[in-house]
């Protein structure tokens, strides 16, 4: 079982555990009242080439770790939620740390394409109040995992 984001391979992450962790936290979606905004919309995730996927997943997961999940533990009172949150965050950290996207020049156009996709997501995030944006991004982890699953070898 491993992820293959184009040339980037990530072993040691059990996707089912991420699903179960998120399922335990799905109620966070009920706290997202801005239903007219979707951060991970089709333009961000649809038709991503294998080559692009490594750059995109790295940018997205780094953003989740540094911005979306930031201070979340302080707000999560329920221990079951804290455990699930830690599972999610730790696995995201493992994935990011193992991704080594190529920095060669001929990959510039591909990495730029991935960066434009990420910027669509980030811009939409920044247009919202930070707390609302964190809640929304957290509630969209199921969209992220559904996309990541396409690159997962069972």
């Amino acid at each position: 079982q491993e992820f293959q984001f184009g040339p980037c391979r990530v072993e040691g992450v059990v996707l089912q555990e991420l699903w179960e962790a998120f399922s335990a936290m799905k109620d966070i979606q009920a706290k997202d009242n801005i239903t007219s905004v979707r951060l991970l919309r089709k333009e961000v995730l649809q038709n991503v080439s294998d080559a692009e996927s490594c750059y995109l997943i790295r940018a997205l997961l780094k953003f989740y770790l540094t911005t979306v999940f930031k201070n979340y533990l302080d707000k999560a009172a329920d221990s079951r939620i804290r455990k699930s949150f830690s599972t999610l965050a730790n696995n995201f950290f493992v994935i990011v740390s193992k991704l080594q996207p190529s920095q060669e020049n001929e990959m510039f156009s591909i990495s730029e394409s991935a960066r434009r996709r990420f910027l669509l997501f980030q811009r939409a995030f920044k247009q919202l109040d930070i707390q609302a944006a964190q809640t929304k991004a957290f509630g969209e982890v199921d969209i992220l995992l559904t996309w990541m699953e396409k690159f997962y070898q069972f």
Partner: protein
Amino acid sequence: LCISGGLPQPTNITFLSINMRNILQWSPPEGLQGAEVTYTVQYFIYGQKKWLNKSECRNINRTCCDLSLETSDYEHQYYAKVKAIWERNCSKWAETGRFYPFLETQIGPPRVALTTDEKSISIVLTAPEKWKRNPEDSSISMQQIYSNLKYNVSIYNTKSNRTWSQYVTNHTLVLSWLEPDTLYCVRVESFVPGPPRLAQPSDKQCVHTLKDQASALKVKI
């Protein structure tokens, strides 16, 4: 027009989803037994701007509404809401949580075909079909939607009262080293890795392994 909030809301509003057939269902408002209450439904695509009407579910008496067509894009998530209307009063809207059919639809059981000989049973599984609007529409197998669809096959030996199960990824399974002249019962559940989903096992199917020809021959001699 009606006086909003004049009635209690419908309750237990949820999607019942099996093989992408997505039915919105709810319970009548409490305390209105006997009243001729009607209902109106709207749905919403997460990330878009407007609530949309479902014309076939305006002022209906029943407490369910088929939104399969409206919620058929796998990449989208949805909300739905319903309000109760009676005479000139109506309730506030009662709303579902976010509904993600791709992750939440129950995968129905496969079709199961059994053939047997003395000491083995061959099982052939056919993936369930996705809901389709018209019977004459071409069929789409749930396997085409979920490439990692698997099956959990449970086998029960009625003589030894023993049950065992195993996961299968392809469509055929041969159970060998069985006892001759024994009734075995089989149930199969579809399974897709991912968020936990409700499962629907197939109906129990039983088949008898054949008598052991060798011992039958000895008896004759």
